[in-house]
């Protein structure tokens, strides 16, 4: 009788633990998915930033739109310590 009761208890706990492990796995997957999405978004932002800040683009905008140029040598003041 005692054994029977124990059997029932363990059977129930097996069911419970299987269930909770699935729950946890699902939560883990959700978290991973979120992590994934965030990473992908970050990658896209990274690309966007580097496209906007590309040296060639910055240089051409500086030269043509903002009329900037490298300062001639005579105007350089360097502080050397």
């Amino acid at each position, binding site marked *: 009788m005692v054994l029977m009761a124990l059997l029932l208890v363990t059977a129930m706990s097996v069911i419970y633990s299987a269930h909770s492990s*699935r729950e946890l*796995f699902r939560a883990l997957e959700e978290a991973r998915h979120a992590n994934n999405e965030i990473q992908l978004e970050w990658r896209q932002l*990274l690309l966007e930033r*580097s496209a906007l800040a*590309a*040296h060639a683009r910055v240089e051409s905008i500086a030269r043509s739109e903002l009329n900037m140029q490298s300062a001639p040598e005579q105007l350089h003041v*360097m502080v050397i310590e």
Partner: protein
Amino acid sequence: MNAQQYVIERWRMQVLIAVLAALASLLVWRLFSLQVLDTERGYRFLQGQGDARSLRVEPVPAHRGIITDRHGEPLAVSTPVQTLWANPKVLLAEVEDLRPLAVALGLGVDELRRKISSVANREFVYLRRRMSPADASRVLGLNVPGVYARREYQRFYPGGEVAAHVVGFTNVDDAGQEGVELAYNKWLSGSQGSKQVVKDLYGDVIRDVQELKAVEPGRDLTLSLDLRLQYVAHRELKEAIDEHKAASGTVVLLDARNGEVLAMANQPSFNPNNRSTIKGSALRNRALTDLVEPGSTVKPLTMMAALESGQYTPETLIDTNPGYIRVGRKTFYDHNNYGLIPLGTVITKSSQVGTTKLAMSMTQEEVSDVFRRAGLGQLTNIGFPGESAGVFPERSRWSGVERATFAFGYGLSVTPLQLARVYSVLANRGVDKPLSILRKTTEDKAERVFDQTLGEQLVQMMETVTRPGGTARKAAVPGYTSAGKTGTAHRLGPNGYEDDRYVGLFAGFAPANDPRVVCVVVINDPRGGKYFGGDVAAPVFSEVARNALRLMNVAPDDIPEQKVATVERAGGAA
């Protein structure tokens, strides 16, 4: 009334019970055999069949790692793109008007209809591959039945053609094909994981069951490249190639202190983001694969051999009269008759006569040994696919002409990267520091191959090259001391050396006193009239080194006195 009872015979009841019990036990047995026993059609089979209809093993894709430059600027990034596909059966049955779908896809209505009708009895057709997520979500937003999206990954190269040869690229399956993408493919790609899921009739995942294999995401890779310097090198090289109508060219920039490659630019280049128009020849990373005869750029090595032999000191005078020298049946000429000159002036003026005399006064092994110790004839082991070790002649008998020409850089070939290594050894006064394309985190072992004092003497000779009277005034870096050597070699054609086709080189380092950068410039086949290394390659060196030193925040060490003012810093204010 005869109350005779109708006696039911006992056995009839028993038979009934037995039959019912037998039927019941048959059911129990059947259940038992299906659920517990492992027969041919037992529980294993049934469970397998059930699982086969709903359980699926799904791959978990591993993201390919990001490649960045030394400051974390991205050079190669994988981002998701959407591939749209349709089930033509569903689409044709349920959708009357294809117009909104066609507009969102950017296709003509008739084109789309043809595309779908041609495979009307199939269940899969690509609508458009690799769309940007924004465009794809516009299509999916229409909620057209039978249109689905699949996520794929595409590699983007923000550096474009600037760093194309170093970074390389991947193919459609995301496997490295060239450059770092190929060399470090395993590191970058990681390994795919897998998990078990339950799917419904429509193929949607209902539930994750368990993880079978953990995904190992690709790891990121930090190169030693500095994108800013790479851009400068690329820009200056491109300008020089256009100006001198040259066929191709290479710039290699090294950090003199630890052998890291800061920039490696080649022309012609290609755009790795749009590979439809690439020519095979543009793909080559010429800095590692193409062989050039180094010409006079190896004269400092001959000079080092002369210093090592003990026959010469920097004060020794060399008689270069009468401006030419006969060796065997060949005559080698200087541009002018320099007369009686100190040893260092042989380098300053790049004198063929002087170099020939030095080579003739030594054994070939003494000279070859110095060349070998400087790294010629060996791979740089930078870890790139397809690197060439150059051509280093090893023969038992050397004729006089062979010895002389070897001493001024003919009869052997090197890659631009090997030449950069030689100059890194010279810049470090004889210490060979292993080259690296990855950012170094630890100091690895450097090896002394030449004597420090001799190295110092040699650098002093090479400093005169960029000063007034030297062959490469245009290589001078404003504000800094610099040292180097020009080279001009005839190109090898099918019939030996071609008279009117050249390779112009300059190799050097700056600042000369405490070198921070080593730079090699190769301009191949300039056809714009000028072809001397001092005219075509030296200006590129000057520009690249100037920008590199400025961006690396190196204090100028060569400013005329009258331009310098000493200022006391006001107390406390910073």
